[in-house]
């Protein structure tokens, strides 16, 4: 299945306008403009330190931006905690290092936020959790602790944990880069499945195969700016900017 077959609506899911961010004096993100429609699957790539992580962390309010606006699902991201809460419950996030809670079982990991944030009864939350664990193909591990799982399994649990909050948008920050090669596939498969269901996704990754297969759009960032964005085929086969060409030559040659 190619990206063309997945439906993209016209509804805007994320709208970023003139967003700027500084760490102290260091200008990490410069005038970011980005509109993501509902159902879009966007892959973000770029050299290390180019601000990819920072960008998607801003969308989730894990980092504050200093200028410009971010509107997620109609909610403006301001310093108001209520808005932040609303946005966070709309947006799920998967980290490079999974960040599962090691003292809770897989099931508890998945039900914690639904119970405490969404105030869903425990039983119902557990049913939902089992549903998503089945989806990521590890229902049988539900009562184990994260430490007993392999990296790939852990990452899938992390995805399931986010899904349990029933987010409308998922952010992924290099979800496979901490994994051994055999496990990467498991996780990518899960993500592809998710994409097929029409989840809006922003994914920082260097897995170009994944980008080709599922992305609607590939964004290339460098030095805190969006340098180029295009549909995957066009992006890979016919990059425009020199910076992109150089980057692609390194990444694909590797």
């Amino acid at each position, binding site marked *: 299945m190619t990206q063309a077959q997945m439906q993209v609506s016209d509804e805007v899911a994320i709208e970023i306008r003139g967003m700027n961010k500084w760490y102290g004096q260091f200008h990490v993100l410069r005038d970011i403009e980005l509109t993501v429609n509902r159902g879009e699957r966007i892959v973000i790539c770029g050299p290390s330190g180019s601000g990819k992580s920072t960008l998607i962390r801003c969308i989730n309010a894990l980092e504050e931006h200093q200028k410009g606006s971010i509107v997620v699902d109609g909610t403006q991201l301001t310093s108001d905690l209520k808005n932040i809460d609303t946005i966070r419950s709309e947006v*799920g*996030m998967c980290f490079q*290092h999974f*960040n599962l*809670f*090691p003292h809770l079982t897989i099931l508890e990991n998945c039900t914690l936020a639904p119970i405490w944030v969404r105030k869903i009864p425990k039983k119902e939350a557990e049913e939902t959790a089992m549903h998503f664990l089945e989806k990521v193909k590890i229902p049988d591990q539900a009562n184990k602790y994260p430490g007993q799982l392999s990296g790939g399994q852990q990452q899938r649990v992390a995805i399931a944990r986010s899904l349990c909050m029933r987010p409308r948008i998922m952010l992924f920050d290099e979800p496979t880069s901490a994994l051994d090669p055999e496990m990467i596939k498991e996780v990518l498969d899960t993500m592809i499945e998710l994409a097929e269901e029409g989840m809006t996704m922003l994914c920082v990754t260097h897995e170009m195969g994944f980008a080709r297969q599922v992305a609607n759009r590939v964004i290339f960032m460098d030095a805190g700016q969006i340098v180029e964005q295009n549909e995957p085929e066009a992006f890979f086969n016919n990059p425009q900017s020199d910076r992109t060409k150089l980057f692609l030559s390194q990444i694909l040659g590797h």
Partner: protein
Amino acid sequence: MTDTNVSFVRTEQIPPSPPPAAEAGIVKWMRENLFSSILNTVLTVIAAYVIIRLLMGIVPWFANGVWEAGSMRECRDILAGASGACFAVLVDRWDHLLFGFKYPPEAYFRIVIALVLLLVAALPVLFQTVPRKLLLFTGLYPFIAYWLIWGGSLWTPLMLLALFVLTAMVYRLIGEQISTDMRKIAAAVVGLIAGVGLAYLLFIGAGELGFIANSIGTSGALNTVAYGAFWLMSGFTYLFFIPMGIFVGYAIYNSYEGGGLVSVVTALLFLYAALTFVFGPVSDGLASVVGLELQAVASRDLGGFVLNMILGTVCVSLSIPLGIALALGRQSDMPLIKGVCVIFIEFIRGVPLITLLFVANVMLAYFMPPESNFDLVLRVIIMITAFSAAYIAEVIRGGLAALPKGQYEAADSLGLNYAQATRLIILPQALKISIPGIVNVAVGLFKDTTLVSIISMFDLVGMIRGPIQNATEWIGVYWEVYGFGAMLFFVVCYGISQYSQWLERQLQTDHH
């Protein structure tokens, strides 16, 4: 030029064989462990000499020990000049050494039961494998122990327990069970009460500050400065007493959606009201109907080793929550709160415990309202708790720092708020890492409880240095009593520290 004959294939296995004879047995052990080099041989000889000399001194003293005598003089007569211990003092003052001289002997069994139950209550905290259900007993234990040790009516601890349970129920009721409209109303009411209450307190406080300023007066440069500062603070408080009240009321009202603040404040208000108005009459009333009395014992009458144990356990358990709060405060990014915590922790860690005990003894009473008169044991508990809280806070801070940043971020990204993230994600992990450190602080603190002897409390050491050594019949005993005291502490502390080492090993393997 290359070695052509490199290829080699083994056709038959070599079976394992035992090592050569010189490599085994006691001789090898001795050679390796005692005489492996000249230096080691010398060390062995020295060590052996030291051990023999020590034994030569101690063994006869022990072996000749007199166990039955009425006084030091009788001991001396029995020994007739030979070197020997007068253990009779231990027999004679056994009760006093363990329980102090004022605790009613017929109630000793209560303390023994309380201590045994303490072990049971501690089990689920100390060992993960013990059924979690026992934690319920741990929660009940303080009330049981209070009743057993201090006696009085069972209704007092029971009522307290009931109040706590009720408070928790009120908290849940407001927080989770009632409808949003009801919660709005509750929020308005509670906000009003809390706001007015706060404004009232601030008003009183402002007056108090003015009073202080006036009583300092302006004689002398330092006094003038203090005078000004107090009036300034007073003015500040006057200025804000109404706005603060309104604001706090409004804040509580406004937070009805989250439910958190409203339910916490409601629960606290409930607890306060219940304690002041309901608690006394009801428990007295119940006591007059059905007694359930144990002979009451005043705190003052506690003594001996039991006092050390009580101070140790009570203060450590009380200081853990305080320590957690301090550690979290110290991690806070609000400078004022962080500053207060840092100052408190560093101050306490910078002064010796006995100066704090002096404070408990000579100063604390001056800080309390004139009519309140709580006894020395309570004051000492307050100071020791503050003391150990500072140390525990540092241990827990280490545990917090050991948590990867990702845990905080994951909690944030799931939408948990600060209180939820702290309670559900951060603390359980940080505390687990900190347990060995906390146990070490506890051992240190338990040993330090002997310092209360310096402020005229009759703990084990106080008992020895006071009544026993000054008793007419036991003037001159020394080694026997101190040796006994040292042994008691050793047994307990060594046990606990072995536990903590076991736990550390356990945690290490957990991580892999």
